[in-house]
């Protein structure tokens, strides 16, 4: 948990965010507040804009309208007396250092070992001493359960292991915020559980997380709040158990009904099971 943030101010504040690709409007005015230490899951059918919104937060996509603040800082622009000035490449890079991101397809650096992947940014972006970083990196790999895989190349690791290295790599920059873009969607069903467990531990440690996912059980048990998106707008949001158990909006209801039959699990089945974040044998993973 980040210590310096006062609980009054949201860590992430998105106001009326719009984004269009070649005239096709993907985000039609998203408002979202995420408080420090909060875990928010973005749910919704594919094409609803949830991944695009996540990528807008750390400026992998530039937004067309609205504002995004992270820890009170306007992302991508400098506001001088009401006039916005686009930030330079280096300044945007500096803003991204505060935000960790985990990708659907891991995107580990294939030419570097697991340890080198984790060490890369602290050594070359923060310019910290390799010896100190090494110890921290090994501790992080140990935390995600991969201390014995430190010298393996990504191609020698399973998908689940690669994704856990990717989480460790993002954590190595000591981010205030972690973004997860469908972190288990590219995994074989039996490898989903280990990644969700790592994320769950991270959430319990107080990390602020925004997670785009189709794992309803994870959203229900780990997230404080779920945000249901469809067609580029937020349809419904609220405490995760409440929304998943008693969705108000028709589109949320039909989406949950469809995805829960596919995941072979009812929301009320094991509300307090300790292993609820670990998937049942059949689970949607795309």
């Amino acid at each position: 948990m980040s210590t310096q943030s006062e609980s009054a101010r949201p860590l992430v504040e998105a106001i009326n965010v719009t984004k269009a690709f070649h005239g096709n409007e993907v985000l039609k005015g998203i408002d979202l507040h995420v408080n420090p230490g909060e875990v928010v899951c973005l749910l919704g059918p594919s094409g609803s804009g949830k991944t695009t919104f996540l990528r807008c937060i750390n400026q992998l996509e530039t937004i067309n309208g609205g504002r995004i603040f992270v820890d009170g800082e306007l992302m991508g622009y400098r506001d001088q007396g009401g006039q916005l000035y686009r930030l330079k490449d280096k300044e945007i890079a500096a803003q991204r250092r505060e935000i960790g991101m985990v990708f659907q397809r891991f995107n580990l650096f294939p030419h570097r070992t697991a340890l080198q992947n984790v060490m890369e940014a602290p050594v070359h972006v923060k310019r910290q001493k390799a010896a100190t970083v090494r110890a921290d990196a090994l501790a992080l790999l140990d935390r995600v359960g991969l201390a014995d895989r430190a010298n393996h190349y990504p191609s020698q690791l399973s998908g689940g292991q690669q994704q856990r290295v990717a989480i460790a790599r993002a954590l190595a920059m000591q981010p205030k915020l972690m973004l997860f873009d469908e972190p288990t969607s590219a995994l074989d069903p039996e490898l989903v559980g280990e990644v969700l467990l790592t994320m769950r531990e991270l959430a319990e440690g107080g990390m602020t997380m925004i997670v785009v996912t189709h794992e309803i059980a994870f959203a229900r048990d780990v997230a404080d709040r779920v945000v249901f998106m469809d067609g580029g707008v937020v349809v419904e949001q609220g405490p995760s158990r409440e929304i998943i158990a008693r969705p108000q909006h028709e589109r949320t209801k039909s989406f949950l009904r469809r995805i829960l039959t596919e995941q072979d699990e009812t929301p009320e089945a094991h509300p307090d099971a300790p292993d609820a974040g670990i998937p049942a044998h059949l689970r949607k993973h795309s």
Partner: protein
Amino acid sequence: MSSAPDTLDRPGEINARPVRHPGRWIAIAVLAVLAAMLISSFVTNAKWDWPFVWQVMKYKPVITGLLAGTILGTIGAMIIGVVLGVLLAIMRLTDNPVLKGASWLYIWFFRGIPRYVLLIVMSVGILYLYDTLTIGLPFLPVTFFTINVKTFSTGLFVGILALGLSEAAYMAEIARAGILSVDKGQDEAACALGMSKGLSMRRVILPQAMRVIVPPTGNETLSMVKDTSLLVAVPVTNEMFFQAQAVSQATYKVMPSLIAAVIWYLIVSTILGMGQSWLERHFGRGFGAQTSVQNDTRVKFLGLRGGGGN
């Protein structure tokens, strides 16, 4: 059908006869006869004059020509070519339309001129047009410094520069293909970690692009070894092929002199080829490239013995 199945009904381990490859054995026989004929002519035809070939090979001007013109020329031209080529490729891939255009123009110009012609034009032309090179502001009487072109314009320097500038145009396309071959997610991951575009290029994109860039660069280097024989156009006399030809003209032993050059070219190419496979292994780490290559050769040899069933 000769080996009986195990006592149990269930089929056991497969112990099949491999496919026969009679064509391979015929090919070996034919090639062996041809090779024997060639070797016998080497030995019996006195005009080959191997002792003289050996003498030319170790003749001092030929050796210095090999070191200065051929090897130094290749290394120098390839360094200019690779560095400038990667730079041109990065320029071509930026959003900056001016740099993009400049890179395109450069490649268009240097790919359009034969190297032999370029060597003559640069050696003769530059000295003719500019005997001193003055760096200053255009059309204004402001100069920063002046270079006397004559002092720089030794034959070898101009030759290496011309070959390097020409090579850069080809290397730019190779480097561009390599950079484009790297998955877009890699750059995104680097950006998400807070890397600037330059750092991402240097630490993440280029090392992976090298895997694609190295093999064609090896070809380019081999071509460059051979293209150093064009340095005679500058003219550079301190070059191996020129010296070998000089021997042939002085002694009238044309073939042995040329064969000496041929052997030297083959030796240099072989060494460079070994260097290339080392580089490919280095940049292929993490991709499991080297094991598959080793397996391929082993399969080929096994195939010859009739062991491989492919």
